[in-house]
C-alpha cells in the first residue's frame, strides 16, 4: 500500500514472483502434471503433454491477442473473440471448399474478416466512445448473427492438407504448438522490443500521459484490437482444421480461456504490464488441470469446484504484484 511496496530489493518468494510474475503458472502446471502422473502410476507422460500442448496452443493464439488488449488499460477486453473464431472459421472453410489449393485464399479471407472485425470494434470504441467491454460484446452478437446467416452452422470439411497440419506432428511435437510457439516468440519481441509494444504498455498505465509523450494513442489501440481479432481468426481457421470443420459454438470456451491465460499468466489486469511466457504457463496449467480432473474421474460438480479452488490457490501463492498506483 505505502511507497514501501515499490522498493525493488526484497528477499524471498515474493521477490521472485515480482520479477518473474509468470513463474507461478509454470510451477502450477508442473505440480498438476506431476499429480496427474502419480495418479496415473507414471504412465502416458508423453501423450498427456502432447495433448496439453495441442489444446494449449489454441488458447495461446487467442490469449496473445487478448493480452495486448488487456495491456492497453483497465476496461479494455475483447469479448468478440468467440464469435470471431466461429465466423472466421466458417468463412475459411467455405472458401477453401475442401481443396488444398484454396488454403491460402481461405486463410487470407479469415484474416481479412479478423481485420474488419477489429476495425469495427475500435470504431465503436473510438467514434461512438462505447466502453470496450460493451462494444466488443455488442459486436460479438452481430458477428454471431453473421456466422449464423453465413454458415447456418453447417460443418464444412477442411482441406486434407489443413487438417493434416492442424493435427500433425513434427519430431513428436504438435504442429499447432510449434505454430503457436513461433507466434509467441514474435509477439514477445513485439511486446518488449518494438515501439508498438512499449506504446501499448504506456497507454495501459496512463493514456493521457502516453498521448502527451508522443504515443500515437489511436493508431496503437486500433492496431491492438485488430491484432486480437486477427489472432482469433487464425485460431478459428486452425481449430476448424483440427476438429473437422467450423461449428457455431467452437469459440465459446475461448471467451473465459483467453482472459484466464492472460491474468493467470501474470499480466497486470489493470494494464500496462504483461508477458508472453505466462500465457504458455497458464495455458498448460489450465489444460493440464482439465486432464487431471478428468483422470480423477470425479463428477461435474466436484470438478468445477476443484478447478476454481486450484486457480485461487495458485494465484494466492503467487501473491500480489505491484499494482498501478497513480
Amino acid at each position, binding site marked *: 500500500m505505502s511507497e514501501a511496496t515499490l522498493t525493488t530489493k526484497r528477499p524471498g518468494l515474493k521477490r521472485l514472483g515480482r520479477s518473474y510474475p509468470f513463474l507461478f503458472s509454470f510451477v502450477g502446471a508442473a505440480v498438476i502434471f506431476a499429480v496427474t502422473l502419480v495418479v496415473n502410476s507414471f504412465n502416458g507422460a508423453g501423450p498427456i503433454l502432447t495433448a496439453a500442448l495441442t489444446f494449449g496452443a489454441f488458447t495461446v493464439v487467442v490469449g496473445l491477442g487478448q493480452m495486448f488488449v488487456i495491456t492497453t488499460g483497465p476496461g479494455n477486453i475483447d469479448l468478440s473473440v468467440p464469435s470471431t473464431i466461429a465466423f472466421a472459421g466458417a468463412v475459411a472453410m467455405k472458401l477453401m471448399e475442401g481443396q488444398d489449393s484454396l488454403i491460402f485464399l481461405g486463410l487470407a479471407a479469415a484474416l481479412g474478416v479478423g481485420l474488419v472485425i477489429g476495425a469495427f470494434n475500435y470504431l465503436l470504441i473510438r467514434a461512438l466512445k462505447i466502453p470496450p467491454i460493451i462494444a466488443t460484446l455488442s459486436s460479438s452478437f452481430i458477428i454471431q448473427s453473421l456466422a449464423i446467416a453465413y454458415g447456418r452452422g453447417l460443418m464444412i470439411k477442411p482441406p486434407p492438407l489443413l487438417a493434416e497440419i492442424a493435427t500433425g506432428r513434427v519430431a513428436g511435437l504438435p504442429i499447432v504448438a510449434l505454430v503457436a510457439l513461433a507466434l509467441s516468440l514474435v509477439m514477445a519481441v513485439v511486446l518488449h522490443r518494438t*515501439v508498438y509494444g512499449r506504446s501499448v504498455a504506456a497507454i495501459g498505465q496512463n493514456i493521457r500521459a502516453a498521448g502527451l509523450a508522443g504515443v500515437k494513442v489511436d493508431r496503437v489501440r486500433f492496431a491492438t484490437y485488430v491484432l486480437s481479432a486477427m489472432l482469433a481468426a487464425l485460431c478459428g481457421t486452425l481449430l476448424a482444421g483440427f476438429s473437422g470443420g467450423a461449428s457455431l459454438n467452437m469459440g465459446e470456451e475461448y471467451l473465459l480461456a483467453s482472459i484466464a491465460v492472460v491474468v493467470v499468466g501474470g499480466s497486470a489486469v489493470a494494464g500496462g504490464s504483461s508477458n508472453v511466457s505466462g500465457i504458455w504457463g497458464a495455458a498448460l496449467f489450465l489444460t493440464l488441470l482439465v486432464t487431471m480432473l478428468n483422470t480423477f474421474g470425479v463428477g461435474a460438480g466436484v470438478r468445477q469446484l476443484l478447478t476454481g479452488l486450484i486457480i485461487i490457490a495458485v494465484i494466492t501463492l503467487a501473491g500480489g504484484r505491484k499494482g498501478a498506483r497513480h
Partner: protein
Amino acid sequence: MTASPARSPTPLVALSGVTKSFGAVRALGGVDLAIGPGECLGLVGHNGAGKSTLMQILAGTLHHDEGTLVAGGAPTGAFSVGAAHDAGIRCVFQELSLCPNLSVAENTRLRHPGLKGFGWRQPAGALIEATLSEIFPGHTIRPDDLVADLELGERQMVEIAMNFTATGDRPRLVILDEPTSSLDHSVAAQLLAHVRRFVAAGGSVILISHILGDILGTSDRIVVMRDGRVVAERPAAQFDRAALVAAMGHVAETAPETAAAAVAEARPADRPIVEARPPRQRGARSLTLYPGQIVGLAGLAGHGQTALLRLIQNAAGSTSRFAKVEGSVAFVAGDRQADGVFPLWSIGQNVTIRSLAALSRFGLIDGRRERAVEEAARETFQIRTPDMDDNILTLSGGNQQKALFARALASDAAIIAMDDPMRGVDVGTKREVYARIAEEAEKGRAFLWYTTEFDELLNCSHVYVFRSGEIVADLPRGELTEEKVLQSSFEETADA
C-alpha cells in the same frame, strides 16, 4: 553546525537520530529535528534530500528504521496515522491525496471522521467553504464540485484548506510539502499570509519549498537538509538567499540577468514553425514560434495555457483548425501524476519513451542505445537514483520532474512544450535546466514555456499573457515587466 534546540521547552514533536532506508537507498541518515508551538519552520534541500520522507514519518504514513520520535511529550514507539492525527499533526503531501471521484465536501468528510450522521453534508460543506474563504478569499471553489473537475491549483487549495480545518480537535502542526508549486503568485501569497496568522495564533507549520523567497519571507527558523541529513539550522533572519543556496550544496548563483540576456535577442527565421490561436480567441491575435526561440506563456493558472500547449501537441503531424505546427513536439508535463509519469515503468523507460523510434533499428529497439540515453539523462540532470532500472516512483518529486525533462530533451522534437515544468525542482537544478534550455535554443530548438513564476519569463524572448482562454497581451522581451504581466492577467479589457 547543529544549532540550539527549539525555543520552547516542550516541543510538539521531536525527532532524534531518525533513519530511513528504501532498499539500498538511505533516504534519511540520522535526523534530529524539533518543532515547538507557534513557529513556522522552513525546510529546504535539494531534490531527493529526504524532506518528503521525513514528513511522511511525522504524518505516520511511513515508519522510521532507527531513532526516536517524541510527539505530545511522550515517546511513541509505533507512530501511526491515527497517532499523528491525535497529536494534532496534519500533512499536505507533495503528491496530492484527494479522491478525484468525490466532491470537495466529501473529501473533507474523509479527512474528518467526526463529520458523520444524518445531514453531515451541510456542515462539511460549510466547514471547508469557511476555511477556503479564510485562507483564499475570492476563490471560486464550491463544496459540491467534483475534485476531478478542479484545476491542479484548485485541488492544491482544497487540500491545504482541508488540513487547516478543525473538527473537534484543532490542527496543531500543519506540514506543507511544496504547497505553492502549483499555485499562482497571488494565491501563494494568500497562503503564506495565512501561515503567518496561524503561527501567530499559536499553531505550528513546517513549510517545504524550492521557492526560496517564500521560505525566507515566511519562516521563523530554517532547516537545510542535504543527502538525508540536517546540515544547517538557524533563525530565518540569519539566512539570505545566497547563504541558503550555499548551504544546500549548490554553487553560488550567478545573477539571473545573465541567462536572460543570452536569449534577449530572438532570431526569427523567415518561417514560424508554430502558428496557433486559442479556440476562444477573439480578434486577430495569435501565437507564433520560430526555430531557436523561447516563448513564454504567462497569466494566471488555468487560463488556457495548458490547453493551448496540448492543442499544439495534438496538431503536430495532423491538421487542426487552430494550430499549424511544423515539426514534432515534445511535452514536459507539470502535473506529473496525471500527465507525465508511467507508474509501472523504470526511470529509464520513462525517459526513453519519447525517443524510441529514433532508438530503433530495423523496427527493434536497440537496448544498448536505450541504455546510453538513460545514462546520459542521469548525468545531465543528476537524477538521484542508484539504478535507472528502479521504478520511477522511487524517485523524489523533483527527481521525477527531472526525468520528464530528460524525456523531452532527449527526443528529436524540434519544439518543446513545457507546462509549468519547474514545479518542485530545486534551485540548483533549475539553474542547470535554464542553461540547458538556452543551449538547446542556441542549437535551433524552439521552446514554448508556460510558467507561473515571473522570474522564469525572463528567460524568454517573447511572452504571451493569457486570460480566460485568450491571449490578451503580447510582450517582447524588452517590454516585459512584472506589472505589465499582472495587469494583463487581471484587467478585464486590456485590449478593448
